[in-house]
C-alpha cells in the first residue's frame, strides 16, 4: 500500500490530535499542510493557532511558517490520503454506477501499486493472467469479496480467505490468527454501517492498549486486502473505515420482493426490429444502399435518410433501443439472407435478395412470423458458446461465458418460467430483474456443485469466480432477451407507470416465442391512437400509433415524431414506395387501415395517378467500339459477328459488359488483326468504356 502501509496502532492513538480540530480547520489542514517542508502560516488563516496547538504541525520560532515533525509525518500522510477519498457520508447519497466505479478505481490507483493489484488479482482470480485495476474492481465491489470473510468459520476458512485476497496465510499461521479473527469481527460490524465507522469510535470501544494494537493490525490487513476502505466522512472530515459502501448495502439488503403487477399510463408495443428491417429492405430494394468499405456500416447520409423513416419510440422507452438501429437491421437482413452485399462501382452496397423481396411482400404478421418461428423452433437450451457471434437466429440473443454446464441445466426453461410471470400483467422491469437475479436465479444453485462432467459451471478464463457473476449474468441474460427477443419483436409491450418506472407485459407474440401458445396475432393488443388522413395530404396522429407510423413511413414524408402532424403524402414519397415495389392497393390499403376516417377521394385519386405514371426502364452498361472508318467497322463485324450490335455506322456496342466478355472480345479482335486502344472515359461516363479500334 502506498500510504496506508504504516503503524496503524500508533496512528489510532495519534488521532486525538485530529479530534482537537474543528471541521473547517481540518479542511485547511488537508488542503494546505504538507508532510515535508514548510508552509506559510498565512495559508492557514484563522485556524493557524488551533492547528499549531493540536500538535499536528509546529510553528517555526518566528511563527511565519508551519512544519510537520518526523513523529507526525505518518499521521499527516494517512490523513491526507484519507482526505482524498471522502467515501462515507452521514446522509445517504444517490450515486450512479459510473460514479461508484470511478471512485473505486481512483482509490485503487491512489493506494495500490500495479504489482500489488496483480498479486491480489492473481490470488483472487486464481489466475496468473495480467490483471489491472479494471479487471479487479468488479470483484472487489461484489458482495462475496467480503461475505466470504464474514462467513468464514474457523481458522482454516479464514486462512483460505486470506490466501485468496492478497494476504499471506503464512503470516497468520505463525501465531497471529487473532488478527484475522478481529478482521472478521470488524467486517461483520462494518456490514451494518454502509456510512462507515469513525476510527475514533472504534478506539473508544477498546479499553486496553493491546486491543487497540489488535484493532490497528486488523485495519491494516483489511485495507491491504481491500475488505476495508479508509476515507474521510464528508460532513465533518472524520477519519472512517468501512466496507465498500455498495458492498455493505448489498450485504444488508432485504430479500427482493416478487414484482407486483402495476397499472401503466402509456404503452408501446411495436416489433421495432421487424419494422426497421422492413424499412431498410424496402429502401434497398428500390436503390441499393451503399455501405462503408471499412466496417460495412450504412453511409451516414443514407442512414440519416432511412432513420427519418423509422418508428420513433417514446422518449421514456428510448433506452431500450440501440442508437444504430439501421446497422443492426442491416446485419439482421444479411444474416437471414434477406439482403446481400454487392459491389457496385467498386463499392459495397446492400441489395435485397429474392427471398428478401418475397419477405417484403408478406403481411406484417407473416413477416414477423418469419422472424419469430426460427427462434421458437431453435433447440437451444443454454447459450454457452461465448465466442459465437451469430446470435441472430438463436433462441437467446447473447451467450454466457461457460465452457461446461451441467446436463441438468436448462436456462431456456428457467427463462420462460421467469418471463411468464408477466403474462396478462405489467411488471416493473427493474423489480422483475432484481428479484429474478437474487431470489430466483437458476445459476446460484450450481455454484457450489463440485466440478465434473455433470457438475458446476465452468467459466472461460477471465470469468473465474462464478459467485461474483451469477447475479449480473442472469440479469444480463434476462435483460437482453427482453430487449432483443421480446421488445424488439413485439413480444412484450412496454409501459410507463405513474411512478415513472419502465414496465413490460408479454404479448401474444411473446407467449408464442416462449412456447406458451401455438399461434399469435401481431396486431392483437396494439392499441393505436386515431390517425386521420386529411384532404391536404397531411396525416395527423391523434395519439401514438406506432404500427401505423411504421407502415405509413414507407410512402410518406415524415414531418414530426410526436403525436400531431406526423407525415405528409407527397408525389416523391409515393413514387419512392412504387420504386420499392409497392402497388396502389398497398398504399391506399395502408392508409385505410390506419385512418379512422375515410380517405379523401382526392388523396386516393392522386396516389393512384402518381403510381400509374410509374414506368420502368433498364439501365445497362455496355462497351462501345468506335472505328475510324467503314473498313475497320466491316472488319470488326466480320470478326465478332453477332457478338456485337452496330448502333451507328462506325460504332458497335458489346451488349455483355462483363470483364470476361470484354477480354474475349479484345482477344478475338487481336487475332483478327484489329487492335484496340482503350480510350479514357469522361468522368461523368465512368463505368462505360469506349474502345478505339485500329487496324
Amino acid at each position, binding site marked *: 500500500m502506498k500510504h496506508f502501509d504504516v503503524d496503524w496502532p500508533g496512528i489510532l492513538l495519534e488521532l486525538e490530535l485530529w479530534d482537537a480540530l474543528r471541521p473547517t480547520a481540518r479542511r485547511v489542514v488537508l488542503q494546505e499542510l504538507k508532510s515535508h517542508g514548510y508552509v506559510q502560516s498565512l495559508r492557514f488563516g484563522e485556524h493557524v493557532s488551533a492547528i499549531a496547538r493540536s500538535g499536528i504541525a509546529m510553528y517555526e520560532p518566528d511563527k511565519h511558517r508551519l512544519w510537520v515533525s518526523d513523529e507526525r509525518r505518518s499521521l499527516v500522510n494517512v490523513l491526507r490520503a484519507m482526505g482524498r477519498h471522502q467515501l462515507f457520508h452521514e446522509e445517504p447519497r444517490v450515486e450512479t454506477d459510473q460514479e461508484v466505479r470511478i471512485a473505486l478505481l481512483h482509490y485503487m490507483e491512489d493506494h495500490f501499486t500495479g504489482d500489488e493489484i496483480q498479486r491480489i488479482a492473481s490470488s483472487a482470480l486464481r489466475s496468473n493472467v495480467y490483471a489491472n485495476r479494471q479487471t479487479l474492481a468488479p470483484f472487489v465491489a461484489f458482495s462475496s469479496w467480503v461475505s466470504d470473510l464474514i462467513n468464514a468459520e474457523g481458522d482454516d476458512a479464514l486462512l483460505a480467505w486470506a490466501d485468496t485476497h492478497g494476504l499471506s496465510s503464512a503470516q497468520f499461521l505463525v501465531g497471529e490468527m487473532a488478527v484475522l479473527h478481529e478482521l472478521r469481527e470488524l467486517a461483520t460490524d462494518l456490514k451494518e454501517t454502509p456510512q462507515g465507522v469513525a476510527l475514533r469510535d472504534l478506539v473508544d470501544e477498546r479499553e486496553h492498549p493491546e486491543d487497540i494494537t489488535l484493532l490497528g493490525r486488523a485495519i491494516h490487513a483489511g485495507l491491504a486486502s481491500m475488505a476495508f476502505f479508509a476515507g474521510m466522512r464528508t460532513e465533518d472530515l472524520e477519519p472512517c473505515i468501512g466496507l465498500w459502501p455498495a458492498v455493505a448495502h448489498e450485504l444488508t439488503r432485504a430479500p427482493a420482493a416478487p414484482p407486483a403487477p402495476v397499472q401503466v399510463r*402509456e404503452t408501446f408495443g411495436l416489433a421495432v426490429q421487424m419494422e426497421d428491417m422492413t424499412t431498410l429492405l424496402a429502401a434497398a430494394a428500390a436503390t441499393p444502399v451503399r455501405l462503408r468499405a471499412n466496417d460495412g456500416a450504412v453511409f451516414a447520409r443514407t442512414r440519416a435518410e432511412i432513420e427519418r423513416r423509422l418508428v420513433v419510440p417514446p422518449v421514456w422507452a428510448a433506452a431500450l433501443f440501440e442508437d444504430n438501429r439501421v446497422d443492426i437491421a442491416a446485419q439482421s437482413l444479411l444474416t437471414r439472407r434477406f439482403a446481400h452485399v454487392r459491389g457496385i462501382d467498386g463499392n459495397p452496397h446492400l441489395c435485397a435478395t429474392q427471398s428478401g423481396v418475397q419477405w417484403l411482400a408478406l403481411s406484417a404478421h407473416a413477416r414477423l412470423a418469419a422472424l419469430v418461428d426460427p427462434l421458437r423452433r431453435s433447440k437451444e437450451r443454454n447459450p454457452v458458446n461465448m465466442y459465437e457471434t451469430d446470435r441472430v437466429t438463436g433462441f437467446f440473443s447473447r451467450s454466457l461465458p461457460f465452457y461446461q454446464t451441467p446436463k441438468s441445466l436448462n436456462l431456456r426453461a428457467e427463462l420462460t418460467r421467469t418471463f411468464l410471470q408477466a403474462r396478462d400483467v405489467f411488471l416493473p422491469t427493474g423489480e422483475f430483474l432484481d428479484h429474478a437475479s437474487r431470489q430466483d436465479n437458476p445459476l446460484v444453485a450450481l455454484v457450489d456443485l463440485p466440478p465434473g462432467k455433470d457438475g458446476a459451471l465452468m467459466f472461460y478464463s477471465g470469468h473465474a469466480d462464478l459467485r461474483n457473476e451469477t447475479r449480473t449474468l442472469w440479469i444480463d441474460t434476462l435483460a437482453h432477451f427482453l430487449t432483443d427477443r421480446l421488445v424488439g419483436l413485439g413480444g412484450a409491450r412496454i409501459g410507463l407507470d405513474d411512478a415513472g418506472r419502465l414496465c413490460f407485459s408479454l404479448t401474444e407474440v411473446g407467449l408464442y416465442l416462449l412456447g406458451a401458445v401455438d399461434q399469435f396475432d401481431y396486431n392483437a393488443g396494439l392499441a393505436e*391512437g*386515431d390517425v*386521420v388522413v*386529411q*384532404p*391536404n*395530404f397531411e396525416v*395527423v396522429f*391523434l*395519439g*401514438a400509433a406506432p404500427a401505423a407510423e411504421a407502415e405509413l413511413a414507407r410512402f410518406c414524408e415524415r414531418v*414530426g415524431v*410526436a*403525436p*400531431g*402532424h406526423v407525415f405528409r403524402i407527397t*408525389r416523391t414519397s409515393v413514387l419512392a414506395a412504387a420504386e420499392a415495389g409497392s402497388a396502389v392497393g398497398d398504399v391506399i390499403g395502408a392508409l385505410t387501415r390506419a385512418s379512422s*376516417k375515410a380517405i*379523401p*377521394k*382526392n388523396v386516393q*385519386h*392522386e396516389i393512384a*395517378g402518381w403510381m400509374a*405514371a410509374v414506368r420502368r426502364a433498364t439501365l445497362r452498361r455496355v462497351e462501345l467500339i468506335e472505328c475510324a472508318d467503314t473498313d475497320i467497322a466491316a472488319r470488326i463485324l466480320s470478326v465478332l459477328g453477332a457478338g456485337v450490335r452496330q448502333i451507328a455506322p462506325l460504332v458497335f456496342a458489346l451488349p455483355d459488359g462483363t470483364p470476361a466478355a470484354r477480354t474475349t472480345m479484345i482477344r478475338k479482335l487481336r487475332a483478327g488483326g484489329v487492335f484496340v486502344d482503350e480510350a479514357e472515359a469522361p468522368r461523368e461516363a465512368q463505368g462505360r468504356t469506349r474502345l478505339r479500334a485500329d487496324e
Partner: protein
Amino acid sequence: MNDNPLIVQGDLTILVDLSAPRYAEARDALARFAELVKSPEHIHTYRITPLSIWNACAAGVDVDDIAGTLTSFSRFAVPVSITNQVRDFAGRFGRLRVVRDEDNPAADYLLLHASDPHLAEELAHGRQLAPLLADRIGPTTFRIRHGDRGRIKQALIKAGYPAEDVAGYTEGESLDVSLRTETTAGAEFALRDYQLQAVHAFYALGSARGGSGVVVLPCGAGKTVVGMGVITAVQSSTLILTTSVTAVRQWIRELLDKTDIAPENIGEYSAGTKDVRPITVATYQILTHRASKEAEFTHLALFDERNWGLIIYDEVHLLPAPVFQITATLQARRRLGLTATLVREDGREDDVFALIGPKKADVPWKVLERQGWIATAVCTEVRVALADDLRMPYALAETRNKFRVASENPDKVQVIRDIIARHPGEPALIIGMYVDQLEVLATEMSVPLITGTTPQAKRDVLYDQFRAGALPALVVSKVANFAIDLPDASLAIQVSGTFGSRQEEAQRLGRILRPKAGANQAHFYSVVTADTVEQEFALKRQLFLCEQGYEYQIVDAHALA
C-alpha cells in the same frame, strides 16, 4: 392520453380535433391567442406567433391564461419550450407604448415610451428605427411624428418589441348612418351573428384597443355587410378601397340597399369619375395610377381630401405596395381589412397585420356552409388528355410554355360542353387566364366574353344580364376573380389559372358561393390537362381550399361525356 381536443406541437402549431367533446370550448379559448391556419374536415390547425400573442396581450389576455388554456385542453403534455416561448413573446409586449402627450393632446406629435433606459438606448441605436424617432425627450421617451406611427410600429414588430398603441384615432367627419331593417326591395335585413361578432370585435366599443384589424370571412359570407356594420358603428366619413370599378359599384349598390345613407353622400372615385363624398369608394388601380414610372402617385392625395374616420380595404390580400406605404402614415384613422383568403403569394401577410391591424374575426368556410350562409360546393378536377399532336410540342416547350400548352388544350372545349350539359339551367361562369383561349371558348360556345379590355359599360351590361338570367353563361378572364357579386352563378368552370395561385382558386370558387334558393348547391370544376405541369400546379392551387375542408373529386374527362 385523454380525449382533450388540442395537440400542442413543438413548432408552435396546435392541432384541434373537432370530434373531441370539449372542442367548442377549446376553439373559443384558443382563438384569443392563436391564428387559425387551416380548417379541413376533421382536424384544424392553429399557430401561435409572436404577433398573435401580442394581439392577445393587447386585448388583455394574460400569459398565465394562455398557458392554462393550452394545459387544460391539451391531450398530451405541453412541451416546455412552448410555454417558455409564449412567456417570452408576451414578456416583450407592453415594454413600448405609443401615447398622446397628455400635457398637449393637440400636439402634432406622439410619444413613444420605453419601459427602461436600456431598451430606449437600443431603439435609439437601431438602424431602422433611429431615423424615425424625432427627438429623445427623456431617458425612456421619444417624440415621434404622426406620419411615422405606422412605420415605427412595423419596425418595432420586426425588431421583436411590439408597441402598445393607445394613442387612439382621429374621429373623422361625423356621418349619421344606420343599417336598414328592410332592403330597398322589401326583404328583411339584419346582421347575421357572425357578422355582428366581427363588427363588435373590430370596433371594441370605440376603444383604442379596437378600431384596426382584418376580418376574414369566406366569399359570399357578406364581408361588405360587415363593412357597412362597421361604418354604422363608427359613424364617420369612410373611404372604401376595392379592386375594380365593378366592385366599386357593387359597394355603392349595397350601401344604398342596406343603409339609410343618402345617394348624394356616396361618391365613386375611379378612372371615369372623381367624386369625393362622405362615403367614397375607390379602386386600388386609380390610387396607384401614375403617368409614368417616375411620376408621383397623384391620386394618393385622396387619403387627405377628407378627414376620414374609417378606411376599408376590401380584398386586403391584394393591397398594392404604394397603398401599403401610405397606410403606414394613416395609423390615426380606423382601418378595416376585408378578405376571404389572407394568402399573399408575396408572403406579406405580416405586413397586412402590422399596418392594417390584427385579425379580428376568422370563420371557417365549412362552418358557414353547414349553417347555410354560403352554398355547399362540390369541387371537381376534370383531367383531359393532351392530344397526340400536341404531345411533342409540349415535350419540347420551356417549362413556362409547357404550362400554357397544357392550359390551352383545345380538348377542354368539349369537356366544358359536357359539364354544362350535366348542369342544365345553372348559370355558369367559365373562368380562364389566357385571353386567346377564352376568345376561342367564347366563340365556340357562343357565350359573351369579359376581359380586361372590355369597356366597363359593357361589363356592367353583361353582368346585369347575367344576374337577371338573360345570359346563361359568361366567359371571364381574371378580371372576375375578385369582388364580383353574381349571386345566382352556381356553376364555375376554371379552364386555366395563374400557375399555383391558391388564393385565385379560392376566389374563383367564391364567385359561386353566395347562398342559393333551393338546394343551395354550387359546382366548381377545374379542367386540367392530365400528366402535365398543369396537373401539378392544380394540386398546389387546391391547397387552400383543401385546408378549408373542401374535397376535390378527380374525374377523367371521358367520364363526363
